[in-house]
């Protein structure tokens, strides 16, 4: 590898994190506005969707009860999307999270026969181990994240069915167990899953923006070679990111199992794509090196609000939700691409 290329990539990192493109001589107010729009588009769209919902449906949409429902149903996706944000900013992708959620749910219900501790520890340990394998194959063996986590998707789904006897045995979590509270309990009017999602969000925010680990994730996503040359422990950080993503997905699976008091191996199919969509809608670039957790949370909420609004209409079939979500994704991404001026040749 030539020195020129490395210098060029190092420069790309230095300028790449500045969204408005400092290399252009006339990087004036227009560029700043464009950058702001690119990062803030999702909040704007979310606000418009909520206002439109309130105007159209009145108190059946804009009620504390309904917002509580949106928060609960979004919290599982939020946990997964937070891990996915780290992975994508680091320049990777994790397709295994939907299957891991199912596997964790089955293991939580399976483990609950040995008590609440096992119901939480078993799925987290297994998902952490799968995340570790993902990370090792990607960081040490230098295999493509897409294909490694695709294999993990297959493996975890297979394991979920294997544990539940090909789906013929549904393990139940007995009523009254402490673990049930994780899914069904409420604290101060908020469901426990919502609190966990909020906690994960706040911790993620600090880790990503206020620690050297977070900065290293940005650097690796911007240019892995440059990060390596700067002396960052690239492989170790990538492995940690994949372990964190897998364990967050596993924890979301535990919460889902606790909420429904059972573990189903069929859950979470396609959830990885929803999480990626939320992350991308939130302004994180799939090319890595730039992104925000706040945007991801707004992206998750936007998907939740869209689903809720379509349910409110009632006469529309739920299929429209997919159409609208997909259309939103395309529109947001097109706008972002135009604004970010990161167009390739």
């Amino acid at each position, binding site marked *: 590898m030539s020195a020129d290329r490395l210098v060029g990539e190092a420069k790309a990192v230095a300028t790449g994190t500045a969204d408005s493109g400092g290399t252009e001589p006339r990087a004036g107010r227009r560029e700043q506005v464009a950058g702001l729009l690119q990062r803030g588009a999702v909040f704007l769209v979310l606000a418009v969707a909520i206002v439109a919902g309130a105007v159209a449906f009145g108190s059946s949409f804009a009620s504390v009860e309904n917002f509580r429902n949106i928060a609960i149903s979004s919290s599982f996706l939020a946990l997964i999307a937070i891990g996915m944000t780290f992975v994508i900013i680091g320049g990777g992708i994790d397709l295994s999270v939907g299957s891991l959620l199912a596997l964790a749910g089955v293991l939580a219900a399976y483990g609950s026969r040995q008590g609440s501790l096992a119901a939480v520890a078993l799925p987290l340990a297994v998902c952490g181990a799968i995340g570790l394998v993902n990370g090792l194959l990607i960081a040490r063996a230098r295999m*493509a994240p897409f294909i490694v986590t695709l294999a993990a998707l297959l*493996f975890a789904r297979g394991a979920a069915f294997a544990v539940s006897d090909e789906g013929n045995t549904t393990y139940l979590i007995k009523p009254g167990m402490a673990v049930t509270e994780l899914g069904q309990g409420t604290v101060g009017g908020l469901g426990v899953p919502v609190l966990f999602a909020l906690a994960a969000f706040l911790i993620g925010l600090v880790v990503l923006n206020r620690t050297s680990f977070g900065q290293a994730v940005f650097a690796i996503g911007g240019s892995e070679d440059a990060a390596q040359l700067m002396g960052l422990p690239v492989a170790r950080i990538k492995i940690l990111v994949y372990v964190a993503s897998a364990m967050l997905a596993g924890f979301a699976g535990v919460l889902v199992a606790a909420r429904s008091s059972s573990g189903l191996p069929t859950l979470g199919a396609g959830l990885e794509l929803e999480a990626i969509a939320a992350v991308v809608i939130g302004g994180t670039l*799939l090319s890595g090196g730039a992104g925000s957790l706040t945007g991801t949370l707004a992206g998750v909420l936007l998907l939740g609000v869209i689903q809720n609004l379509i349910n409110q209409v009632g006469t529309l079939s739920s299929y429209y939700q*997919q159409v609208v979500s*997909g259309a939103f994704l395309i529109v947001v991404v097109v706008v972002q691409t135009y604004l970010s001026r990161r167009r390739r040749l």
Partner: protein
Amino acid sequence: MDEATLTRTLPAQRDLRGWLGDRGVYLALALLVAFNLAFTANFATVGNLRLQLIQVVPVAIVALGMALVIGTEGIDLSVGATMAIAAALLPLYLGYGPWVAIPVALAAGGVVGLVNGGLVAFVGVQPIVATLGLLVAGRGIALVIAQGRLTELFDPTLAAIGTDRVAGIPITVLIAGAVAGLVGLVVRRTTFGRRVVAIGGNRGASVLAGLPVRRTLVVVYVVSGLLAALAGILDTARLSAADPSFVGLLIELSAITAVVVGGTPLSGGRVRILGTLAGALLMQLISATLIKHDLPDSTARMIAAAIIIAAVYLQRPRVAT
């Protein structure tokens, strides 16, 4: 790759690994066939061969388009949704006869490809995001078109395409074979094929060399959309029912697996048509073998995962860090 890595690896080792990396899929396929010949009852029968080929047709056709897309360093996640749209459109237009309905369904696939290609080539959206949008929206569109229902079809022409044989070979298999031959010819013998590989190898250089990069990309995604629609039509014809909820579900993952296991790297710059077909056949035989030996579906998936990792591990870039 620097000097140090070259001298550290013995030539013989390097050759063996290089050979395995390039032809691992054929070796694996041969081993699996040998295992089946020895241990599986009724494996070497015409009926079984026919069954395996019929079952591999949709994945093989979709994977051929996917191989072109991956060759340009892209990816097409929308193929399953495109199959569903094609399947949902068939019953609507069968009233005008199959020779209207089939072109309409194919055209819909072309339109999906046009949108994907436009987003990738002209807007500059990353392929995975552009096609993810249509993966989510596409199945929704298909379900809206079909109002979420499974529709049984009673069209003799379509049924014939789906189930008849010519000289003992099912028509769907013949169609897949023709498509494979055509795509293989295009990749090996035409300037278009060269451009696909060039764009995947180095897009910047292709632009500087004056290649019509954008146009080529759009055509590649349109071809992928058309082939996905064809797979949707054939699947619908075979079942004599259009089921937009399930037709082509998760086929994007099987197709990508077939392409990658077959030796086309996700980083583009190379297209392996025979390898792709072998990859599709390998994945089909793995699940068939495990089912024949009474291993449950769940174990089949886990073993498939291990085989994917092993195949891609052998093909990983050989640059030490």
